């Protein structure tokens, strides 16, 4: 089953055509939590790989790589969205289904820009940061 409807696929292809640099999706697989109620036999890791590979098929500038239990990943499955194959700390933990496929696509689009799209004053504020910040955003697919 395709990951996107034909109209969605065409739109994502169009968006990916604007990527200014290559983006790699590193899919990290490993031990997963107890299956969710109602998840039946869904293999979250395999589905995550399928989605990442499906997106990579839509642009020569998007690629996909799969690793088993790479260092630095606290949860599996996970996707590290890497501009020019560099880990810059942009991740999606879990299976990006439903609404959340949009977050993954959005992450690829952001990572594919040569310059960050924040406003200049926001970038200036971040430049003064003297400590590390780990921002976690909890989401659901519906």
């Amino acid at each position, binding site marked *: 089953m395709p990951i996107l409807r034909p109209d969605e696929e065409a739109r994502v292809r169009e968006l990916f055509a604007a990527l200014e640099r290559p983006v790699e999706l590193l899919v990290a697989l490993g031990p*997963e*939590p107890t299956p*969710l109620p109602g998840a039946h036999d869904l293999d*979250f890791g395999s589905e995550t790989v399928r989605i990442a590979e499906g997106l990579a098929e839509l642009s020569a500038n998007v690629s996909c790589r799969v690793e088993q239990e790479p260092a630095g990943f606290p*949860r599996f499955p996970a996707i590290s*969205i890497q*501009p020019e194959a560099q880990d*810059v*700390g*942009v*991740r*999606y*933990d*879990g*299976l*990006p289904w439903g609404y*959340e496929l949009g*977050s993954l696509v*959005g*992450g690829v689009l*952001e*990572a594919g*820009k040569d310059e*960050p*799209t*924040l*406003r200049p*004053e*926001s*970038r200036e*504020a*971040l*430049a003064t*940061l003297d*400590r*590390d*910040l*780990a*921002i*976690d*955003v*909890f*989401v*659901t*697919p519906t």
Partner: protein
Amino acid sequence: MLLAYRCALASPRVTATAIEANEFPRLAEEMEVWAVPRIAVNGVPQWDGSVPERTFLQRVLSPGYE
């Protein structure tokens, strides 16, 4: 989510992770996720909901938000 990603792409000091709450229920409970998006900074739950870029930056850069 995209604001957090933009921050991570703009600063080597920042990481941004979307976490599918249903899939990691123990962590979601620890972070008191009752509504989404739920934002946590440095492992401390902070606020729910989308906010404008200026507010987002003010909050995550505030010394109280960590």
